């Protein structure tokens, strides 16, 4: 039996703004909850290859593990939590811009 594949999303930084983005079925979003959740290893690899080829739009694509909370992806590691929400030292950046 193959190893279970924990759900993942493709994430990267936007080439021009440099901010954190997530792959959707049709493009990119700045909101993790809108990301396409990948539950199959082969599918995830293909989606990552697709993302990595978009060199004029994004930088540094990789797969980040998520957990599903009420059917929406949430970060597993605290680093991804900070990437999803922006700096926590005071209210600025993503945490105020995406409200």
């Amino acid at each position, binding site marked *: 039996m193959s190893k279970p594949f924990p759900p993942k999303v493709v994430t990267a930084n936007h*080439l*021009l703004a*440099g901010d954190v983005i997530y792959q959707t079925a049709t493009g990119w979003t700045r909101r993790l909850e809108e990301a396409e959740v990948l539950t199959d290893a082969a599918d995830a690899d293909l989606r990552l290859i697709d993302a990595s080829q978009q060199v004029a739009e994004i930088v540094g694509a990789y797969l980040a593990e998520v957990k599903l909370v009420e059917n929406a992806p949430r970060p597993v590691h*605290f680093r991804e939590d900070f990437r999803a929400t922006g700096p926590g030292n005071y209210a600025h950046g993503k945490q105020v811009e995406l409200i």
Partner: protein
Amino acid sequence: MYSYSEFDTAFLATRNAQFRQQVERRISGALTEDEFKPLRLMNGLYLQLHAYMLRVAIPYGTLNSAKMHKLAELATRWDKGYGHFTTRQNIQYNWPALQDVPDMLDALAEVGLHAIQTSGNTIRNVTADHFAGAAADEIADPRPVAELLRQWSTDHPEFQFMPRKFKIAITGSPNDRAVTRAHDIGLRMLERDGARGFEVIVGGGLGRTPMIGKVINGFLPEADLLPYLEAIVSVWNQIGRRDNKYKARIKITVHEHGIDEIRRLVAERFEQTRKTFSGVDQNMLRDIENHFAPPTFKSAPHSGFKDAYHSDPIFRSWADTNLRAHRAPGYKIVSISLKKHGDTPGDASAEQMHLMADLAADYGHDELRISHEQNVILPHVHVSDLPALHARLKDAGLATANIGLISDIIACPGMDYCALATARSIPIAQQIANRFDDLKREHDIGQLKIKISGCINACGHHHVGHIGILGLDRAGVENYQITLGGDHTESAAVGDRVGPGFSANDIVPAVERIVDTYLDLRSSSDEAFIDTYKRTGMAPFKAALYPQTKVAAE
């Protein structure tokens, strides 16, 4: 203040034009990220956790009001209205858009600032004592030499492919405020029989393998400086390890070969490099020195200062804490704290930067310095101007009286911004500062340096903090290790790790227990934390932090 020559200006314009084209090619997709990355790093542009980050060099931490105004303008026009002053006397903008960076660099060039060699495997911005040119204890102003080193190291053809980055710090004072023993090369100006020279220290550094630098030359005559430094970098460039980036810094080279062998190799190489310097560098140095002539100091009555000192306790507290001795009669060195309790250490808003520039122009002979401790210095202020200066600082939230105290914390950006970080550091600094401010104890606690890094690269200098805090990722959870007894001065020492780390929730109470232990142990209020620690050793602090260990041992 060094003024750019036509050569400097033309060099910068060419360099910026090249980078503009590189950015355009990246945006068009003609360059891949792998191709573009080394080019952007050479120009100080990182891609961090949430955005690009542009690191602008502030050579040897020296600014005038025009430069500070320009830094503020960049924050307003192309960033989120603030800048972050770093532990290497640089400023970082956390939010530039890629397409704006060439315009930012052009704007910086208007006042002779740049981002060259603030990243990559280069000789980085040369740092210096932030009290340079003003300190009462200074042998000589180290900044002309630092400027000479900047010119020598910028685009040096031999040093374009080095094993790793290379950092040089210089002080002109026996009291080392430039952390010279924790740099690849540290220079301490000396005078011997009326002649000027340098104690040259090599192989210091923090990071994952902290090392205190070793003296490679006890007295290097001033005229030999460039050929000797060129020999050091050249020897390292040849034998430094390239197989493992974690072993590539010169501290590892010195450690593996031994200081005596490195000294021999450098002496050998020096015989060659010396011949290639005709003395033109010394002529240049004399010319540069003219740019750094001290201002014309004024005389004025001190009565206004004395009146304010005796009548205004807030002013008195600030004056007692944030002023240092100046070489000129009637003058003080003013440290402007960028550590208001609860704020991000080292951050200044554009409005605050404009104000500090105005204050430098109005009261400070148009000079400012950035300290590696992430504060801003007005190096030359006459005491008669201090009450008015303090009032304007207070209105802008810049009059926090905490220089050298427990809330004057060095903190790297950590995981709030940095892509390399393994844990947050700024929120820990904010919580510590707020906690001790709430207790109103920091003036009683006295001199205590807390330094926090959010990863082992140690940008927050935690190894040399009296209390050092290192944030790590332990199995997906932030974990903070404590070291005690670090020292960043001429008696530099790497702190001792106390024991297992603490969670983000437990680290501030842990610091409080350390401080409580110190207050119980100190012989008098005059005995600073570091002196108590040296006297008692770690045992009582360890017992306070890990009482269960003591119980288990009994």
